[in-house]
């Protein structure tokens, strides 16, 4: 991380003059192949993606003649604060005046392809580590050009010049970056730049306030939902109450009588009512009569599905991990512990209901939406319209929450909006209601885990047999060829098949049963770890209690060769005062889990009374390597704890007679302030490899709380949500 990078070794760099004046820096890094879409590979392989795209917006930063520094975000701001973190990387190397930084979401273009995933995407808690070099290099390169321009103007050697706070300094003379921008843009790009040593950082590592704070406090921040221009209409789509259902017939008569309703059109996902405003569209949709062919899923029932899952867990699954002979080792074990864990379908329910504005022109299409996956949305829109992807201009707006829902390989809400605008022959904003969102699918899949562990005479595990049953979020998507190997969706078994506990046991097996079901499923903040973290850390707690050992000491013994787990675990335990007394009626639970390259441990303090658990405090420790902005890191820990805990306490999506039984926040319950514990965050001072921060604090919270509930009551929570299980 701290070696100065020689850009020319691994990047192609171009600098070019911007028509409007100023300097544009754009470059690309050869794609890593981890999540690469097969289609994307064909389109871009072997080509310099900047070759045909420069100049204008295809760049990472612009220096204006007014000394403004406009940073283009290759990723989407959805709360995680990359609107601030990525500019920090540029400003550090550029010695920029922080007050002059402006930020914009980049368009969808090859220059902004994820350095590791190969498509333009925000997800996997990857933005900061994946851009750590690219954005710093952009800043350093720009600084070098500005210095060179100043050297030319002053007739001095470049290495005699210094930079500070948006100026090049030469003795007592100083020239602003704005004054140098046009001259810098005419210079030849340096072959390499040297990045600062970490000891010289002034911005990286310092708690820095959000740049998007002011506009989100005074109501002027523009989300997709807020797009308005003359002639724009609002649509709501009547969709089948059962997934996979189709329109048999519809009668738009009454809907068209509603004042403000302008059109009713059929689209692949249902029937769209297009109106002057949301209220008219909503009333129109209520008046619309649709006869549905509910199709094959009209009998869907999640309770029955769970029974099927239970049977499947007992059958032979596909092997996701295997070592030694777990059967034989179990037979010889001093004792065996067996448990079944069940986790429900979950909706992401971001605060901003899904929406997408589409304006189709003769030679292209404009789309305004909050998306985490510009590449697939752009491709899907282009396909529907018979256009080339580059004819589809994606305007990424602030996302009112994402949590994975707005990164859909199926591009569902964008595709639908394109169909609506196409059918209407007019610019349309397609808006989902909250009910549409909660009933509309793309859930975290329900999972059942069956775990059987053999303990030796010393109470330590000697055999681990694990079976998982659930839908794959990857099957059927363009990611399938890359992310499913030998029938195993890596995201289904992450956190189990690669668990340090499991791998540390000589005899283990992890089996997966992938269920084919019609319920649309998707990554939900922390993906597979959202269920595996709960199962693993609850099970380890069960084993510790069975062995009569302290849950912290038991974990320490099992993780003795995993220093980063241990560092987080020890810091959380120390800060929580693990062995110190608590107020009467309050009990502790602990959990530690690695995900997205980071290691998070949490201690939850919980009391149980009148059949309900109250979480008083969560002490959280993380080792994510370098923390670029410690305050936004803390905010992400608080956020993930709220998100994971709310789900663990109350959230579930269930199906009966083919239909989702929940509809709005009164029955799809999420965290509210009166259930939110105090959160304390501690950061492990670490020079290890950088990991993510958006998701890794989700997995430990449910087990830490469930383990505290066990300490308080002796009742082991094996099914989420906790709901009324303590009544």
């Amino acid at each position, binding site marked *: 991380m701290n070696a100065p990078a020689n850009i020319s070794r691994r990047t192609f760099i171009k600098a070019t003059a911007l028509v409007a004046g100023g300097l544009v820096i754009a470059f690309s890094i050869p794609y890593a192949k981890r999540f690469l879409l097969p289609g994307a590979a064909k389109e871009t392989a072997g080509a310099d993606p900047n070759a045909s795209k420069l100049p204008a917006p295809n760049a990472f930063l612009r220096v204006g003649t007014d000394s403004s520094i406009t940073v283009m975000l290759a990723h989407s701001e959805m709360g995680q604060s990359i609107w601030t973190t990525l500019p920090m990387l540029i400003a550090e190397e550029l010695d920029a005046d922080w007050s002059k930084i402006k930020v914009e979401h980049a368009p969808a273009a090859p220059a902004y392809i994820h350095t590791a995933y190969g498509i333009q995407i925000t997800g996997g808690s990857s933005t900061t580590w994946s851009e750590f070099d690219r954005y710093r290099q952009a800043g350093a390169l720009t600084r070098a050009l500005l210095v060179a321009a100043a050297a030319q103007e002053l007739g001095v050697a470049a290495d005699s010049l210094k930079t500070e706070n948006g100026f090049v300094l030469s003795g007592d003379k100083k020239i602003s970056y704005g004054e140098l921008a046009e001259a810098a843009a005419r210079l030849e790009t340096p072959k390499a730049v040297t990045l600062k040593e970490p000891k010289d950082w002034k911005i990286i590592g310092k708690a820095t306030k959000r740049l998007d704070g002011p506009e989100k406090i005074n109501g002027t921040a523009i989300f997709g939902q807020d797009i308005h221009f003359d002639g724009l209409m609002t649509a709501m789509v009547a969709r089948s109450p059962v997934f996979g259902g189709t329109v048999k017939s519809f009668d738009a008569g009454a809907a068209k009588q509603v004042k403000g309703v302008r059109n009713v059109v059929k689209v692949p996902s249902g029937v769209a009512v297009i109106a002057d405003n949301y209220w008219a569209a909503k009333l129109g949709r209520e008046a619309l009569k649709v006869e549905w062919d509910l199709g094959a899923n009209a009998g869907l029932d999640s309770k029955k599905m769970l029974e099927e899952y239970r049977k499947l867990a007992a059958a032979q699954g596909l092997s996701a991990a295997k070592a030694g002979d777990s059967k034989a080792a179990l037979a010889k074990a001093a004792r065996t512990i067996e448990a079944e864990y069940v986790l429900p379908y979950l909706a992401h329910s971001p605060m901003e209901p899904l929406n997408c504005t589409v304006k189709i022109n003769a030679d292209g299409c404009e789309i305004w939406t909050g998306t985490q996956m510009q590449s697939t949305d752009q491709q899907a829109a282009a396909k529907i319209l018979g256009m080339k992807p580059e004819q589809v201009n994606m305007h990424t707006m602030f996302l009112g929450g994402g949590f994975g829902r707005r990164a859909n390989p199926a591009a569902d809400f964008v595709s639908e909006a394109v169909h609506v605008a196409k059918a209407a022959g007019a610019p349309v904003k397609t808006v989902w209601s909250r009910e549409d969102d909660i009933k509309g699918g793309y859930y975290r899949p329900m999972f059942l885990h069956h775990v059987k562990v053999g303990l030796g005479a010393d109470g330590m595990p000697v055999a681990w047999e694990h079976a998982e049953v659930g839908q794959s979020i990857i099957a059927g998507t363009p990611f399938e060829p890359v992310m499913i190997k030998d029938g195993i969706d890596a995201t289904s078994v992450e956190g189990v098949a690669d668990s340090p506990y499991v791998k540390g046991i000589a005899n283990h097996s992890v089996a997966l049963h992938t269920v084919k079901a019609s319920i649309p499923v998707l990554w939900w903040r922390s993906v597979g770890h959202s269920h595996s973290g709960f199962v693993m850390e609850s099970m380890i707690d069960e084993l510790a209690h069975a062995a009569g050992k302290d849950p912290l000491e038991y974990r320490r013994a099992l993780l003795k060769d995993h220093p980063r787990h241990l560092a987080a675990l020890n810091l959380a335990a120390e800060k929580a005062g693990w062995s110190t007394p608590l107020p009467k009626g309050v009990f502790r639970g602990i959990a530690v889990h690695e995900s997205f390259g980071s290691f998070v441990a949490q201690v939850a303090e919980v009391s149980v009374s009148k059949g309900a658990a109250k979480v008083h405090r969560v002490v959280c420790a993380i080792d994510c390597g370098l923390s670029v902005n410690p305050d936004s890191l803390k*905010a992400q820990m608080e956020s993930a704890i709220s998100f994971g805990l709310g789900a663990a306490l109350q959230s579930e999506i269930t199906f009966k007679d083919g239909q989702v039984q929940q509809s709005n926040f009164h029955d799809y319950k999420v965290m509210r302030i009166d259930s939110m514990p105090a959160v304390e965050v501690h950061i492990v001072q670490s020079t290890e490899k950088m990991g993510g921060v958006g998701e890794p604090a989700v997995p430990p919270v449910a087990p830490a709380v469930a383990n505290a509930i066990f300490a308080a009551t002796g009742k082991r929570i094996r099914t989420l949500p906790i709901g009324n299980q303590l009544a």
Partner: protein
Amino acid sequence: MVTLNINGKEHQIDAPEDMPILWALRDIVHLTGTKFGCGAAQCGACTVHLDGQPIRSCVTPVASAAGKKITTIEDIHNDKVGQAVQAAWSEIDVVQCGYCQSGQIMAATALLASNKKPTDADIDAAMSGNICRCGTYPRIRAAIHAAANKL
């Protein structure tokens, strides 16, 4: 036609009387700081003040606002308490995605207008109708205390 007084200015609104204030604000007056979150008074994103009282504008028809004053996030800085709340929100760096924050700030301002030194329990009671999926709740509590200390 309904006449609405929004942020001190009269607006003639061509809308049915049962249209919720939220949609008059957003789709007719184009004041989009007030957000749509649930349409059922379940999440608080649409909170505005009607004669100083916090209401859920997504379920309050425009007809009920006749002769009353609507205050939205766009104008709350002109209120002494609102200004202190916004300053505290900035100081504590509360926001994340930001979508619910207009409603949070309007609810917090109403709380502090009626209760100058709210306890955590007061805050939880007054703010539990405002959902934040990003979980900014610990900072909301801290910011309300900070604003109370400045007032």
